[in-house]
């Protein structure tokens, strides 16, 4: 799982729309191309980017190659964003303490830190 590749794969609106469609269930290239004003090769190209980023997988079913969301890929991105939140939250927890300290000295004059 390469997070750089995953996030840049998500930077494209067509690829986000493809992921949104796949979130409802697996689909073939033909089915995916339908709602978009795009050729199948163009959609295949987008799918390739998503597959390389670890966000989409394919399985073989006779002549069909249905694509589906990769749970592991989506989970890795969720974990990363959760960690970003945590790091920000850490700063703000410190700020909470600082703010609590700022209100106090006002009440207790002469209490220099």
């Amino acid at each position: 799982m390469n997070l750089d590749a995953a996030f840049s794969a998500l930077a494209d609106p067509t690829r986000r729309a493809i992921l949104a469609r796949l979130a409802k269930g697996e689909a073939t290239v033909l089915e995916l191309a339908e709602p978009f004003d795009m050729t199948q090769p163009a959609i295949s190209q987008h799918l390739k980017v998503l597959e390389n980023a670890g966000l989409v997988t394919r399985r073989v079913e006779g002549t069909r190659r249905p694509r589906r969301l990769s749970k592991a890929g989506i989970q890795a991105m969720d974990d990363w964003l959760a960690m970003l939140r945590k790091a920000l939250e850490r700063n703000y927890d410190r700020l909470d303490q600082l703010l609590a300290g700022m209100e106090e000295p006002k009440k207790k004059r002469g209490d220099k830190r």
Partner: protein
Amino acid sequence: MSKLTLKTEGDTHVIVTRRFNASPEAVYRAHTDPELIQKWLLGPEGWTMPVCINEAKPGGKFRYEWADGKGHGFYLTGEYVALDPYSRIVHVERMHLPDPTPDNHVETRFDPDGAGTLMTIRMTLPDAQTRSAMLATGMEHGMEASYVRLEGMI
């Protein structure tokens, strides 16, 4: 139970909100007074901000430098566009890793919320690609410890 929200909006925005049990004036000061900023804007355990320059006036510049005490560090520079004490700050910033990242236009609002403050940060990146890069890697340098902890968990 996290009070913080972090979400994307459209192709180029990132919105962060956080509530504080303090007045908008106090929260605003904690974002503009260098002595206060140096006490909390630190990222993971062990990191410090040895340099904190902040001219909180329109057109004023700021520069924050972080160090982990083991030879790693990076810095951020920016300029203030508008300041409405104690309700709103508009600024432009970029990380130096050491190459500068594309400019991030940031509007921070401090709105009264009961006895506290609701802070809303709205970041606007030049394009979707830049926003993705920021989310994927831009903050990684400041979060090494969290990153290592995450790796340990997987």
